[in-house]
């Protein structure tokens, strides 16, 4: 490699390591992310064409603005962001790691002079006696020191929160871990949905990306119900009772699944997501012959007919769950064996209503049952634990990076004209103002100790 090539490589390397690139990428990510919050994402083309002219639409589409968070340029920005993270860590981590693993027990004079928290005293006594006193002092006031000899004499070294220096790198690494978790989820997982009518079973789900996925087991919806808060339309609970059969055996029996309480089986999780009516209502109608105690119940769906013992035919013509303010109401067409046909209206909330008609038969609407289907979201995401690991490290790493600081203290003892020259030197890798205050107090104690 020629010298010029080397400088080009070095320049590229420096570019990818630079803090300016980080700031630039973060700001560009922030600004471009706005686009997808203003333009609704992943809508059908017709919807966009209502807002934009054809020309604008094609321009925006070619820029992938309609699915921008998965566009080549946005992914590219995220890759640039990751490369920047990796490069700056590669550049700085070895030095920091060395500082953590191999503290500078006997720093050079140049290094000592570079610190601003310094105090110096000249004391009488032997080197060894002063060392003992100061070892006790440092242990009491800060942390127990190690003693080494070097060019200037004896060096006592103590430090605290050494690993705080790694907080930044843990934070950086955590972001990469989150990305890895997201990629795992995208490659090996899926998002799907399935609608199951009450009583029905499925063993496949419909992928959001198109196509179907086999579950390898079956899910049955035993029951679905929706409840409301008293006297209001405000929903209180959507509840599906799900049964899972695997290899013909019931493994989960009638487990209630509500919003915020999903069901997991073999890595696939089912979430209560929507519901809707499945087919018509089933009514239970009671028929009583006037003057007798005998009553017979019939279950009818809309349009269904039934034959009474006296050859009268009835047919459920219509039903509504709420007729004006009167609640559930049904209309029956009644065809006696030898008379004109007529129709009657039954109200569930007014069971005596048909009695007052004075007819031969007394009909009452006992109850009705609406069949629903439950809409479930089905998700398989083997990467989600990796994401949570990354998130935990992100929070812990940033707390360490922000609130802990690696504090170091040296006491350098050198013999000088029959006396001992004692130097106290302190350094903190962050939050200097707080350390200065601390060092000022330490300095006072130090002077008192040696006085």
């Amino acid at each position, binding site marked *: 490699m020629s010298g010029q090539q080397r400088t080009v490589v070095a320049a590229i390397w420096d570019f990818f390591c630079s803090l300016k690139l980080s700031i630039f990428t973060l*700001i560009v990510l922030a600004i471009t992310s706005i686009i997808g919050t203003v333009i609704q994402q992943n809508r059908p083309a017709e919807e966009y064409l209502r807002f934009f002219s054809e020309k604008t639409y094609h321009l925006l589409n070619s820029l992938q603005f309609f699915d921008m968070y998965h566009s080549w340029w946005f992914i590219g920005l995220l890759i640039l962001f990751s490369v920047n993270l990796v490069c700056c860590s590669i550049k700085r981590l070895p030095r920091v790691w060395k500082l953590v693993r191999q503290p500078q027990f006997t720093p050079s004079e140049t290094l000592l002079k570079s610190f601003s928290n310094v105090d110096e005293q000249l004391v009488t006594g032997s080197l060894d006696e002063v060392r003992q006193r100061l070892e006790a002092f440092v242990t009491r006031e800060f942390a127990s020191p190690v003693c080494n000899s070097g060019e200037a004499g004896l060096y006592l070294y103590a430090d605290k929160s050494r690993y705080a220096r790694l907080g930044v790198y843990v934070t950086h690494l955590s972001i990469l871990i989150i990305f890895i978790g997201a990629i795992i989820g995208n490659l090996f997982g899926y998002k799907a949905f399935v609608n199951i009518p009450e009583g029905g079973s499925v063993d496949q789900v419909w992928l959001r990306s198109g196509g179907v996925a086999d579950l390898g087991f079956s899910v049955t919806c035993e029951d679905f119900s929706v409840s409301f808060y008293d006297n209001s339309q405000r929903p209180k*609970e959507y509840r599906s009772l799900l049964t899972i059969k695997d290899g013909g055996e019931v493994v989960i029996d009638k487990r209630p699944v509500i919003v*915020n309480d999903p069901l997991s089986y073999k890595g696939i999780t089912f979430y209560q997501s929507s519901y809707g009516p499945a087919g018509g209502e089933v009514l239970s109608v009671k028929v009583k012959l006037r003057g007798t105690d005998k009553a017979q119940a019939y279950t009818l769906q809309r349009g269904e007919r039934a034959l009474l013992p006296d050859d009268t035919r009835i047919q459920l013509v219509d039903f509504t769950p709420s007729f004006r303010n009167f609640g559930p109401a049904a209309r029956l067409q009644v065809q006696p064996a030898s008379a004109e046909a007529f129709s009657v209206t039954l109200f569930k909330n007014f069971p005596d209503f048909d009695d007052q008609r004075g007819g031969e038969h007394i009909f009452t609407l006992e109850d009705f049952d609406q069949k629903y289907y439950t809409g479930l979201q089905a998700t398989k995401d083997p990467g989600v634990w990796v994401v949570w690991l990354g998130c935990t490290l992100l929070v812990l790493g940033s707390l360490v990076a922000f609130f802990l600081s690696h504090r170091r203290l040296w006491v350098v003892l050198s013999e000088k004209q029959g006396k001992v020259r004692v130097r106290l030197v302190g350094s903190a890798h962050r939050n200097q103002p707080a350390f200065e205050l601390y060092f000022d107090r330490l300095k006072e104690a130090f002077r008192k100790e040696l006085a």
Partner: protein
Amino acid sequence: MQSGQLFNLVTIAYFASMVLFIAFLALRGKLIARLATWTAVAGFLLQTGAIGLRWYETYQIPGGAGYAPMSNLYESVVFFSWTILLIYLLIDLKYRQPAVGAFVLPFAFLAMTWAQLRLDDTISPLVPALQSNWLTYHVITCFLGYAAFAVACGVSIMYLIKVAKEKDGGSGPAGGIVGQFPSAKVLDDLNYKAIMIGFPLLSLGIITGAAWANYAWGTYWSWDPKETWSLIVWFIYAAFLHARITRGWAGRRAAVLSIVGFAATIFCYLGVNLLLAGLHSYGS
């Protein structure tokens, strides 16, 4: 006594405290500063009680199963002003810079006024999507973060005023209202400290939101506008934190980033709900 009446008293206390802090800037005097701080503390304690009372009230409505009062726009705005006071008072306890109060209390007062005058304070039981403990964790962490950013924004505005005045040469011991401001260096440091508190809280807020979304809908991230905006806010403050250790970016540029960050925060909190469509709605 109902919580609504207590919240009115809280609003008055924050107004009084705000006026006292501004009076302190103009008149100086330790006594005024102390009075302003104590009024703020009194308002804060009253608000804590009022939120507790409202919590109790959620159990009293027909069919009410009770819930932490952070579920609709009114409750969240009230809670926001409470967190602003909490973070401000903690910072004040440590750094004792009463002038900052004049730039932070207005946020809390505005929030309370808006909530009391314009927002619907009906207590309604929770819809199924909100029936989760994650709601409480998510709201608490997010709003503590937002509150720290509000304090940072107030301090940054002070910084810009201070620096602009010093450039005019109008400073000195008799530098008018600005004379009571802490030095530019202290303001820059306070700005950083507040964001240092806010950033991990915002991260935690986003994470608890993602965890909840994953638990309720099976997807921890769906690029919903609210999620995206919280990430935008995160990007801005991440840029701020890196800017502070870059030469030429500390001071003025950092202060501007902090103000932009808070503007984005407010948009994330309110703008997204009022202007954009998405998953987060405050049940109108």
